[in-house]
């Protein structure tokens, strides 16, 4: 069995307080192995972002556990959590590269920031820091001439590359990408997906968790897919299994809804049927 990188077990999370406290995740289990790309698919409000935030240690859980390697993220106090986060073992790439980069920091400063707040930062020389930033930029296909640019002068695709470089410079074991290509044009979408898929070769052993509402946008690079629906993982399997023979009605609706170039018109009725089925069960 491959080495398990991330193990989420029976995770229950509620958000809000007092009478408005609402359960969001109802016992979610998930696993990402080393060197694996896993897709987490679900609609708005299904709990995918809550799950990602829980893995990052940003939410308190009701029950369950989140383990990254040997670290039990849920059991860490705030100080331990901060120093765990600063190790950079776990990194995050957000959907909107326009908002996730500080507009006043140069590309170099953004990418270097993670390195300079690490506990071992004092022992890193200036030259070593520069080398590592340039290596990270090269990894995402940006020439080092970009280092002095401000985000405002870059295109959306270039910014997303910077965001990936900023995550990769810390050599994370797990990279969580939250809708990494949804805000990008077709050209940049392909380039970014290719880049993310290539990380496996350039950084062997890295695990990727890909969060998206759109099965079609991530199916091409994931090994396995988890389908999250109303706070429950309703289906899990290899990408091929999920797409070729979806079992749960929601997964069937997802597969049937993803626009494809070859889709006929007959699917409309089937979708209606599935929606009625899901509504009735809800």
């Amino acid at each position, binding site marked *: 069995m491959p080495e398990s990188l991330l193990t989420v077990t029976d995770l229950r999370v509620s958000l809000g307080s007092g009478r408005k406290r609402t359960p969001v995740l109802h016992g979610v289990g998930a696993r990402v192995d080393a060197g694996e790309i896993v897709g987490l698919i679900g*609609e*708005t409000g299904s709990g995918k972002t809550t799950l990602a935030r829980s893995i990052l240690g940003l939410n308190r859980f009701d029950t369950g556990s989140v383990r990254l390697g040997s670290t039990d993220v849920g059991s860490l106090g705030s100080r331990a959590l901060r120093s765990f986060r600063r190790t950079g073992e776990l990194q995050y790439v957000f959907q909107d590269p326009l908002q996730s980069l500080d507009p006043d920091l140069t590309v170099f400063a953004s990418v270097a920031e993670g390195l300079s707040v690490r506990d071992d930062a004092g022992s890193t020389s200036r030259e070593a820091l520069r080398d590592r930033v340039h290596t990270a930029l090269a990894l995402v296909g940006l020439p080092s001439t970009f280092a002095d640019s401000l985000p405002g002068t870059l295109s959306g695709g270039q910014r997303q590359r910077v965001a990936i470089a900023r995550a990769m410079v810390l050599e994370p074991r797990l990279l969580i990408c939250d809708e990494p290509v949804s805000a990008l*044009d*077709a*050209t940049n*979408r*392909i380039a970014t*997906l290719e880049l993310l898929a290539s990380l496996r070769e350039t950084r062997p052993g890295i695990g990727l968790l890909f969060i998206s*509402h*759109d*099965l*079609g*946008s*991530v*199916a*091409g*690079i994931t090994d396995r897919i988890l389908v999250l629906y109303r706070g429950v993982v309703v289906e899990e399997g290899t*990408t*091929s299994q999920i*797409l*070729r023979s979806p079992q749960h009605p929601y997964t069937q*609706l*997802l*597969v*049937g*809804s*993803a*626009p*494809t*170039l*070859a*889709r*006929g*018109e007959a699917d*409309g009725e089937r*979708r*209606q049927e599935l*929606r009625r089925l899901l509504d009735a069960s809800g």
Partner: protein
Amino acid sequence: MSRVDQSDTAAPTTAAPAAAAPLLRVTDLRVSTGAADLVRGVSFEVGRRGSLGIVGESGSGKSLTCRSILGILPPGLTVANGEINFDGVNLTDLSYNEWLPLRGNRVAAVFQDPSSYLNPSISVGKQLVEVLRVKSGLGRRAAFTRAIELFDSMGLRNPEVVFWQYPFELSGGMLQRVLIAIALSGDPDLLIADEATTALDVTVQAEVLDVLSDLKTSRDLALILVSHDLAVVAQVCDTVIVMKDGEIVEAGPTAQVLRDPHHPYTRLLVENHAKYGIEKYLDPIDIPTTAPGFPATLPAIDSRLEVLADA
């Protein structure tokens, strides 16, 4: 202006425009800031009950093309050249008053982000009633009845309940249906949907595309669907144009463009789906990424080709 009798224009697709004058004919459209041209040499036609998809990335000029047709170009931009002939009327030199009986009544539109087009403090039904009373001159009671009918025909369940709901109480897909209902309230001949499904979840997007597909058959409606996603357009449209940097780089029947894309950008769009979309798993054969074209066995495309060949 005279409405042309529509009974003699039963062409099922836009592929046969020669049979009758098209509903919309855009010829050599140029949109300019004065200093630079943002849209150049754009020409296309949309037949009655036809459906045209416009595909392109942000900045390709697809929205400006639509806004020219609606006469709502942003300040500073003008139609510098070309003609937009809508059912015999040239739309490029209409005055404000000449637009009134056209926009909403004969050409209507829905856009991305439905919630920003509705007043948050007025129930959605009242907002539809307002349009019906002002644009169609219906009385209070008739407008209410018509509003319920329209909501119902958009597939909104319990239209009497939806009528009294406020925008924040409805989901994105429901709001887009409300906006489509408002757009169709004047019984237009042409509906322009500019990235109307982009902000929606995939399953909801499919619902709205289903609604648009149904409208094509249930009403005398021509459709222009704008999207950055070629596959979205492929669900609904008979013909497609691909725009890049303000120009049309590829045009033709949807099936043909998908099967045999010529321009590198169109190929890239097709390749995007072939490599990273779910096609990889759904199709019996992997679509080659370098050779132009698709496996000839895709049933959906073949059935569409027959329709086009018959037309």
